[in-house]
């Protein structure tokens, strides 16, 4: 039998205070209810108008009940039953404070974003802060927009972000944890009230003496999602620290916790497993691959090195010399380590440069040109023309690039496609100009294809996929190509060019290496010998064997990288700091070792967590 609400004398309507009532529940929770001003004019005699108003209100109320609203209106999000189940659990049982500890690749990000969307649609959250490792900021921002239609502000690397007004005045912020925790900003971030805070790769907050932990603990927030596939990295106290962020006292004090659950001499081995499992089950959800039956067939990758000759070889040499002449030194560049906003501002949209005293190229311009050189000479010519304008030094390079009809990579691609017969093959290229070139290349070669570039309407996209399934062997895709569509009937993918961000490469592979794929997947990477892409590929294939990893593991490895830079920024910095190819090779070796260490750290942790949690928390 529920207690009756205690009606304090102040519960009566206070007309003087503008139709406001205050009272409190039996348990003492203060309640304030404000009535909006009434209305009278204009007046209608049309019953239908009034009925429509009432029906609108009634339908709006339906949003508050059992239906999950977050699933409606999503584009390009393939969600799985375990994710939906997780969303329901977080909403119903976890009251918006949860440690999402799914195994890698099961879509913790999707789960968190679904709950986030549900909270926003139901009006349960308005101010949201998402904290992620620097390497994942752009990935998060892109997914939030493209899949969930949610715009988040990434704090600018200017003084504006040091001011409290930015954090209190911006309702949706996506920031790297390292940026938010800095001494200049932490106070402003913690002073602002948040309805929901999401922390990705939350194992970075495992140690309560660190600024990471203290920042999260200091945040004024209603709801908190901690996302990590590896909540325990070294010892059980890390788990204790994470859960204390969520629900202080849930595992009692540290001393109690150690006494009850940690075996002496082995801080990784829990005692009283059953009791601990029960307690963890109240704040943690962990889906595993075996339980949700998401084990995928293996994937194999092969690098095809194309050797440029003649004009093409000369083109790359001249370009390299040109870019090295016009690069800025990294320390002079104000945006080293910048997050997305700032990089975008630097896009070569300004007037073209000309004359003898040319300023150094901006980072974005350099990275565009370097990426274009890894794609096709036509794309390079376009980009260089846009960036260099009338610079006389650039003109011969542009001319050579325009005159190259068929590149070494083109030959490799045609060879591959001829070998593949009627197998369905996806060919990815980053640049629109490259896609256009590939279209004419395949036309000339008599190979049937469809194009899926993201510029088509929904209907055209559906038609393209259907044609690819039934009629033609090749689909030419841009970066966004095929997103959200089922393309598992294909099992071969060719990267004609390569994004510098491994997460983007992973996204490409994920188009066909996903649930529903029953055959082995083959990935071919085409790159020009001696190029930056070749070095990158060497790093990713030989060092961390990226293409053999399980979907999602790359993100975990990159998340373990120290420092506040995105992977593309790292790659560009290496190029900018190296005056010669030998120096560049050496720098890539160092980066390779760092990646390897990050991978080893991840693998050790993964083993520990598998042993510790098993399949107990689904």
């Amino acid at each position, binding site marked *: 039998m*529920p207690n009756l609400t205690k009606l304090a004398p102040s519960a009566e309507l206070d007309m003087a205070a503008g139709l406001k009532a205050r009272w409190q529940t039996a348990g003492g929770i203060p309640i304030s209810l404000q009535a909006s001003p009434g209305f009278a004019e204009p007046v209608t005699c049309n019953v239908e108008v009034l009925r429509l108003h*009432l029906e609108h209100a009634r339908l709006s109320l339906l949003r508050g009940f059992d239906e999950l609203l977050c699933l409606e209106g999503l584009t390009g999000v393939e969600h799985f039953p375990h994710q939906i189940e997780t969303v329901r659990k977080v909403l119903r049982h976890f009251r918006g404070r949860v440690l999402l500890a799914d195994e890698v690749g099961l879509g913790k990000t999707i789960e968190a974003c679904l709950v986030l969307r549900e909270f926003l649609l139901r009006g349960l959250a308005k101010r949201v802060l998402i904290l992620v490792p620097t390497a994942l900021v752009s990935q998060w921002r892109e997914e939030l927009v493209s899949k969930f239609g949610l715009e988040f502000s990434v704090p600018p690397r200017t003084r504006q972000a040091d001011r409290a007004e930015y954090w209190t005045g911006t309702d949706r912020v996506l920031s790297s944890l390292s940026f938010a925790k800095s001494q200049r900003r932490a106070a402003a971030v913690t002073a602002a009230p948040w309805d929901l805070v999401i922390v990705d790769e939350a194992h970075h907050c495992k140690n309560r003496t660190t600024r990471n932990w203290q920042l999260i603990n200091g945040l004024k927030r209603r709801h908190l999602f901690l996302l990590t596939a590896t909540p325990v990295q070294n010892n059980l106290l890390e788990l204790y620290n994470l859960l204390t962020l969520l629900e202080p006292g849930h595992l009692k004090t540290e001393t109690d916790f150690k006494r009850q659950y940690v075996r002496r001499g082995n801080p990784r081995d829990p005692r009283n497993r059953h009791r601990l499992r029960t307690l963890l089950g109240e704040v943690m959800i962990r889906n595993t691959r075996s339980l949700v039956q998401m084990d995928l067939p293996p994937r194999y990758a092969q690098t095809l090195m194309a050797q440029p000759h003649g004009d093409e070889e000369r083109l790359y040499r001249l370009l390299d010399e040109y870019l090295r002449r016009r690069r800025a030194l990294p320390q002079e560049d104000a945006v080293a380590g910048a997050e997305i906003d700032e990089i975008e501002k630097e896009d070569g949209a300004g007037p073209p440069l000309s004359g003898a005293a040319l300023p150094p190229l901006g980072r974005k311009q350099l990275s565009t040109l370097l990426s274009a050189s890894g794609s096709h000479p036509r794309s390079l010519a376009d980009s260089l023309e846009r960036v260099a304008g009338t610079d006389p030094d650039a003109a011969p390079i542009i001319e050579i690039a325009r005159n190259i009809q068929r590149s070494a990579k083109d030959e490799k691609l045609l060879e591959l496609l001829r070998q593949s017969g009627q197998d369905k093959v996806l060919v990815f290229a980053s640049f629109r100009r490259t896609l256009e070139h590939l279209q004419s290349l395949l036309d000339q070669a008599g190979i049937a294809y469809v194009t899926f570039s993201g510029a088509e309407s929904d209907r055209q996209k559906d038609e393209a996929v259907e044609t690819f399934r039934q009629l033609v062997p090749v689909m030419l895709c841009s970066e966004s190509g095929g997103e959200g569509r089922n393309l598992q009937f294909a099992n071969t993918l060719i990267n004609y060019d390569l994004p510098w961000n491994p997460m983007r490469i992973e996204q490409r592979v994920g188009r066909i290496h996903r649930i529903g794929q029953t055959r082995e997947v083959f990935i071919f990477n085409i790159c020009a010998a001696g190029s930056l892409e070749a070095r990158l590929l060497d790093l990713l294939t030989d060092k961390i064997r990226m293409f053999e990893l399980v979907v999602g593991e790359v993100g975990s490895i990159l998340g373990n990288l120290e420092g506040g830079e995105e992977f593309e920024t790292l790659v560009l910095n290496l190029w900018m700091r190296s005056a010669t190819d030998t120096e560049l090779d050496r720098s890539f070796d160092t980066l390779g070792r760092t990646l390897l260490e990050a991978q080893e750290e991840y693998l050790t942790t993964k083993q520990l967590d598998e042993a510790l949690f098993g399949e107990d928390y689904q």
Partner: protein
Amino acid sequence: MSGGIQEELRQFATRVLEHRGALVDWPVGTGAGTAVVPEEVAAAVGIDDDTIRLTDQPGGEGWCVSLGTDFLETAGRLLEAEPRTGSFAASRLYLKRGSLEEAVRRAFAWLNAKVVVRDTRATHVEYHTWWFRASLTSEDRWETRLAVTVNSATGVEIDLPDPLALWELEPRQVTGRKPPSTYPRAVARALPRVKAAAEDFFCRMDGRIERDRRRLREYYGALLREADHKKPRGGATPDPEKTAERKRAVELELRRKLAELDERYAIAGSLQPLVLIRTVLPAMAVDLSVQRKRASKRHTLYWNPLVRAIEPMCCGRCGNGIFSVAFTDDDVDPRCADCRR
């Protein structure tokens, strides 16, 4: 989403568009339709064409009619400029004839005054039906929709059937002076109903906050006990100052967490008027002469043809409808038993 809700949404979308002058072709049971719409409607929907595709499939082209998209927000914008006050009459209702003296005697108990029925006459009374949306937000959210009908002449709340469902309803052009504002009275009447309806919600929040408080107190209490017994490394004697400082920090942290908890659970509510329906009904007015000590005053009761009964009087202090009526000494104003005390 269930088919039932989807069908309701389809009907609603069709009605809104048709009301705004569109031609809609969206047959029952189909997932998509089309509408030829005026320019301003196309602009509100965000489609740059006078023919818009209607679909219940999220992610598809056109206007997606679904609870999970911004359909309701857009529909709200389309309705925004539409009047929210309606004026009607139901003049053909049957009116009881003859004296109502006996009915008054049976319905009312006059606690402290002499009351005489002076006259019974046919008249018209305007009733105001205020529809509200009430919402409460705390750790969770609670919402409801409710209607309060008030007799604009007496201010008493009447449990009237939905006027929009009356077959006798006819349009009534408003002329002359404005009716008395019944809005504050309607809000006052809505308040206890919101409280009663949200009782389970309040209990749930009470249970949750209590559990959270207990957990925090236990945790920080244990930290305080630990601080007392913490031994420095190397077996040195604990520094009482450091211990006191540690305990102060723990107490401060507990206070901060408890304050955060209170802030998080504090319930903020709103009562938003949705629609006002002004309905003029024929009624029988019963004029009373009330004598209280030396003072006397005329009051009027109404026989309502929809509820087919005499309406209660309205307590001049709390606004409750009353049949056991006491009167004040000077003003001869009606009071309920509670307010009289």
